[in-house]
């Protein structure tokens, strides 16, 4: 297991480096000048030149990439020269908001999706199973930004039960929780469907396995069989899905952050790309890439821990 973990971490580091170099190149290939965007029409050529120098854009591209990677290795994501604050500080502040949103979304999606999946498997081919099936496919098919807009219109604008914008007063947990409900609902709804379908499929497979039949033969209560024995195995594909799904969750968060005017890393990347704020784009991209690779590594490791056959495949 230790050897597997070492190999997996090594691979993760390579993936991060390659991804960062690729993204760095892509951002610089896109036409556009940060100086023109940031300084606006009042900028003189001298001011633009100064800004390029400050951002290190006057150096050869390869030097920029190598210097950036060196800084990242030392844990320095640079300075956002405009707000005069360290990029890491800005990114991690926004990351908190996104992580809370993503975590809240996936938590409620699991809380509803797993029981729904179990229920469908247990009562397979009944009317309720089909109803859950239609619901699951339905919510998977609806893009999260559509859910965001309609839930906003209904719960915030029409009923005025929930706030429409922002992330709530800092330090006031209840207020922050209220601001979290609609965005988390919008992002998590599709995942309820995914998880329900996935749990149903794997549960059906597990329920027909020998050890489950043996448990039934021993006369164990069906709830114990389903939740204690079958679910443990049936949940494995969901763990993998969640690991790889973090990227998708972050991209869904971008829409939610824009629609609900919430701070977050997705919106930070979007705004920074539009304004060609390279230090912020790269800082945010590095952090989200690391997050993605880390979550995949963790989910793979959990899989390997639960199923030794996985260790052989790397």
């Amino acid at each position, binding site marked *: 297991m230790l050897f597997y973990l070492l190999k997996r971490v090594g691979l993760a580091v390579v993936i991060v480096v390659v991804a960062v170099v690729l993204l760095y190149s892509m951002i610089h290939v896109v036409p556009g000048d940060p100086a023109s965007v940031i300084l*606006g029409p009042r900028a003189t050529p001298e001011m633009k030149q100064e800004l390029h120098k400050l951002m290190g854009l006057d150096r050869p591209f390869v030097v920029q990439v190598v210097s950036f990677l060196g800084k990242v290795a030392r844990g320095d994501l640079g300075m956002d020269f405009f707000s005069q604050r360290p990029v890491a500080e800005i990114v991690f502040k926004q990351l908190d908001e996104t992580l809370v949103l993503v975590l809240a979304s996936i938590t409620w999606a699991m809380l509803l999706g797993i029981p729904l999946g179990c229920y469908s498997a247990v009562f397979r081919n009944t009317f309720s199973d089909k109803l859950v099936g239609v619901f699951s496919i339905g919510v998977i098919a609806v893009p999260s930004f559509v859910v965001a807009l309609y839930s906003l219109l209904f719960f915030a604008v029409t009923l005025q039960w929930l706030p429409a914008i922002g992330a709530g007063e800092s330090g006031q947990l209840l207020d922050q929780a209220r601001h979290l409900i609609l965005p988390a609902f919008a992002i998590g709804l599709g995942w309820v469907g995914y998880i329900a379908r996935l749990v149903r499929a794997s549960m059906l497979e597990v329920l027909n396995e020998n050890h489950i039949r043996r448990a039934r033969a021993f006369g164990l*209560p*069906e709830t114990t069989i389903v939740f204690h024995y079958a679910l443990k195995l049936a949940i494995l594909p969901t763990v993998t899905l969640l690991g790889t799904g973090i990227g998708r969750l972050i991209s869904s968060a971008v829409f939610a952050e824009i629609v609900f005017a919430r701070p977050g890393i997705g919106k930070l990347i979007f705004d920074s790309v539009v304004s060609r704020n390279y230090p912020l784009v790269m800082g945010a991209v590095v952090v989200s890439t690391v997050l993605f690779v880390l979550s995949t590594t963790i989910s793979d490791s959990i899989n390997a821990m639960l199923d030794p056959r996985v260790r052989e495949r790397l």
Partner: protein
Amino acid sequence: MSKPNMQFSKIRLSRRSFLKASAASAGWLMLPGLGMHPSWAQDTRVLRVRDYGDPQSLDPGIASNLYEEHVNAAVHNKLIAYKPGTKWEWQLEAAQSIEQLDPTHIKFVLKPGITFTNGFGEMTAEDVKFSYERIIDPELKSPIKGDWATLASVDVTDRYSGIIVLSKPFQPLWMTTLPYMGGNIVSKKAVEAAGGKFAAMPSCFSGPYVIKEREPKQRTVLARNPEWKGAPAAFDEIHIFPIDDEKTAEMGFEAGDLDYTRVSMSSYKNLKKKPPKNSVVEKYPSLYYVWLGMNMEHPKLSDERVRRAVQYAVDIPSILEAAYDGVADPATGYVPPGLVGHRPDTLVPFKADFAKAKALLAEAGYPDGIDLDLEVRNKAVYIAAGQVIQAVAAQAGIRMTLNLHDSGSFWSLGDESKGDRWKKLQLVLNRFSSAPDPHYAAQWFTKEQVGVWNWERFKNPEYNQLYEQALAEADKDKRDQMYRRMQELMEASGAYRFITHEAVPVIYTDRIIPALRPDGMPLLRYFTTA
């Protein structure tokens, strides 16, 4: 249908219990008792407004965006400031009196007793001198240096008075420098203590509000300045939310999360017809100007007849109807109505004239029409405008290809320092912001701006000469004629088809009385409760 693989009696989980549990969970989530009180039940002493951007720098010397000025104007003082209302006028703010002694000398006297917070003492003429002279200091690299381009010095006469000395007459000073971004007065002591400029947050304020909290990308909170001795601030706090998307802001307003916001032009008619409960919807003329520009140095557009053909092939009423929902009026130049230099009419009528356009094209050697590229920013309103231009111009034989750009790419299209892209530039749908003096808009079309912001590469000696003369001209009527002529020269070159100044629709709750500039922009320090 196959039977379920278990009996209800054998498990505790039944359909009924499952549904009961689900319904209970959903109900619990929506229960008003969980603190989900209606969003409008807020303290009326907190004003919640939306701005379209998040302030990056709050040092008035290096801030250059309007949303930064909205904050700065509430927490700092200027000698004079814009007067809320429908006419562009200024009023005294930190100055007790101010007068133009001659074309290059302006005498001011400060109101005594204006103090800077955090123990930085009383505002003096030394602070005024420091605040204005630092903007022209090359060390600071201020983006608003141009506003004070003619400043020679500020001579301090005594503790409260001084004289602003200009190197040459500069009429826009009264409408675009002193009451705007360049007019904010900071504490010399505080800035020097901060090392020459404020970083993210200024260390002291002198206005009716102070910055209490900055949550980047989330909100800026202003609170009453306890040391303020002027007319009391109406609100305990002002929360400013940076929301780029107008539709999001509209929903935020309708949900009761905002008290004032600009809304989209496409929503104006509906909101006006059926405003949300307890709200007021108004429309203000904007200072922005939108135009179709043509690169005069591109081989396809170097012939004036081709450019004029494009002018005649663009139908302004269709653009205004389709892209601006009939809310905006056509523009006759870069100066909007109500300001010195506004033209009453254009050389080319607003309505397209396809026969004339075709004839001009044929005359220029394009009897079968011409293919051109049109560069457009990827925002819904500009895309719609671009599509209308494309569809209508096709009737005159001008086949346009629409190229969409995000802001980053768009704003470097005609910039010579960014490589050779400007050489390929043909048509561009452009939009600039402006200030309440024609000089502000006029400056981008001089010869010196070619390849910087003058993407049409319009070079006209008469324009440049008039531009310089108008800066110094004190006679309002003469200035008016000069700027009219300058815009006429631009249109006559064929490189410009002015489209609109857009409009600024706003919505606010009837619990407040907003203080707005004539262009609908908020002057937060003067907002009051109804």
